[in-house]
C-alpha cells in the first residue's frame, strides 16, 4: 500500500525534527562554549545563546543538505563564525573601551575563574576575525587551510590574524614572550 503524500511528508518532517532536536540536546553545550569564545562572553550568556540559536535555525534549514550528524556541528560552528564576521551591526559581542583593557596578569593569578574572565576580556579586545581564527585554530584545532575556507580568506591571512591574536595573549602575560612567535619560526602547519 502506498503512503499518502501528506503522510510521507509529515513522516520525513518528524524524522528531521527528531534528529535535529537530538543533535541540539547532544551538542548545544559544546556549541554554546564556542559561541561564548566567539562573542568573548560580552553581554553574558544571552549573546552567546543568540549567536548559537541563530546558527541553529540556519542549520535546521540546511538539515537535509548536511546529511551526516557529525557534519552538523561543524556546519553550525561555521555559520556562527560567518554570522560573527559578516553581520557586524548585530551586537554579538561588546567592545571594551581602551581604558578598560584588563591589566597584565600577575604571578600567582591562578584561579581558574579569574583566568577565564580575564581571557574573555582579552578576547573582546580583538577584532572578530582575529578572535574567530584564535578559536578555530587553537580551541577547535582546525588547520590554516580549513580556517581559510570557513572565513573565505587566504591561509596567509589566517596566519597573520593568528599571530596578532597570540601577540595579544602574550601582551597580557598568558604566554611567554617567545611562545608561538612567528618571528622565531612557523607556528602553524
Amino acid at each position: 500500500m502506498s503512503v499518502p503524500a501528506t503522510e510521507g511528508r509529515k513522516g520525513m518532517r518528524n524524522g528531521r525534527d527528531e534528529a535535529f532536536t537530538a543533535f541540539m540536546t547532544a551538542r548545544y553545550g559544546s556549541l554554546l562554549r564556542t559561541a561564548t569564545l566567539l562573542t568573548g562572553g560580552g553581554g553574558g550568556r544571552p549573546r552567546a545563546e543568540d549567536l548559537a540559536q541563530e546558527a541553529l535555525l540556519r542549520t535546521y534549514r540546511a538539515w537535509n543538505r548536511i546529511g551526516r550528524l557529525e557534519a552538523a556541528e561543524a556546519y553550525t560552528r561555521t555559520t556562527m563564525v560567518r554570522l560573527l564576521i559578516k553581520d557586524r551591526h548585530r551586537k554579538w559581542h561588546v567592545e571594551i573601551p581602551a581604558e578598560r583593557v584588563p591589566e597584565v596578569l600577575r604571578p600567582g593569578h591562578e584561579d581558574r575563574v579569574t583566568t577565564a574572565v580575564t581571557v574573555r576580556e582579552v578576547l573582546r579586545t580583538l577584532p572578530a576575525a582575529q578572535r574567530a581564527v584564535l578559536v578555530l585554530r587553537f580551541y577547535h584545532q582546525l588547520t590554516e587551510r580549513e580556517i581559510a575556507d570557513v572565513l573565505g580568506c587566504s591561509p596567509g591571512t589566517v596566519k597573520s590574524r593568528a599571530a596578532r591574536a597570540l601577540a595579544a595573549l602574550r601582551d597580557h602575560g598568558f604566554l611567554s614572550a617567545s611562545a608561538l612567535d612567528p618571528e622565531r619560526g612557523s607556528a602553524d602547519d
Partner: protein
Amino acid sequence: MTDQHLPKEEEEEAEEQAREQVRRLLAAAAEPAQSPAPAPGAAFTARARRGLLRRRLAVAAAAAAAVAAAVAVPTALGSFSGDDEPAPAASAECLRTAVQKIRDRQEQGYRPVYGTLRAGRIDVDDGVTRSSAFRFDVDGALAYGGAGVPSSGPVTVWYPAAEVQLPEPGRYVLLLDPADRPSTEGGDLFHFAPEQALPLGDDGRVVLECPDGGKGAVDRERLRAAVTGP
C-alpha cells in the same frame, strides 16, 4: 647526530606546550560563568520548522506572483498552513497591557505605524556599520511621536540584533525610531522595537501578546483609539 637534532626537538616540544597552553586558556574561557544553559528542545525545533515553512511560502508566493499564477497560491497555502489559528478577541486586560507597552516605547521616541514588511535583505552602510536592513512600506500611523518617522511610504529598517527577532514578511504594526545617521547613500534609516512587531491581519485586526502568554486580536482602529486616548 642526535645532539644536532635536540634543539629542534626541544623547540617543537616547546611549541606544542604553548599550543596546549592556549587551548587550555580558551577551554577555561569557554566555560559559562553561570549554570549550563538547557539545550533548546522540541519547541525550538517547531519554531525553526515554522520559519522554514514561512520562507518556503514566501518564495512560493513570490514565484506565483511573478508568473501571475494566482491559482497556485491557495494550493501552497493549503500545504503549509496549520500552525496558526485565528487569535480570539483580546480581553480588556490584554489590550490595556499592549497599549502600555506601546506608550512606553513612544516615550522613548518610537512611533507606532502599520504597513507591510517586504521579503529580502538590503545591504546597508551608514559609514560606521555595514549590515542588513529590510523594507517596510508604511501605510499609516497609529499615533504621533517618533519625530522623523513618516506616516506613509517605504522606509529602510535595520535588522534586529538577533535574526530570531526578525518578523517574517507580512503586515504588521511596528514601532519605528529614526537611526542616528542616514546611510552613506543618503537614505534615512530606522530601528524597530522587535518585541512589539504585532501581526496585522487582512481583516484589519492586530494580534497582541497577552500577559497570560496567549494572543488576542483587536481591530486596528480600536487599538489606535486606545493608544491615543486618555
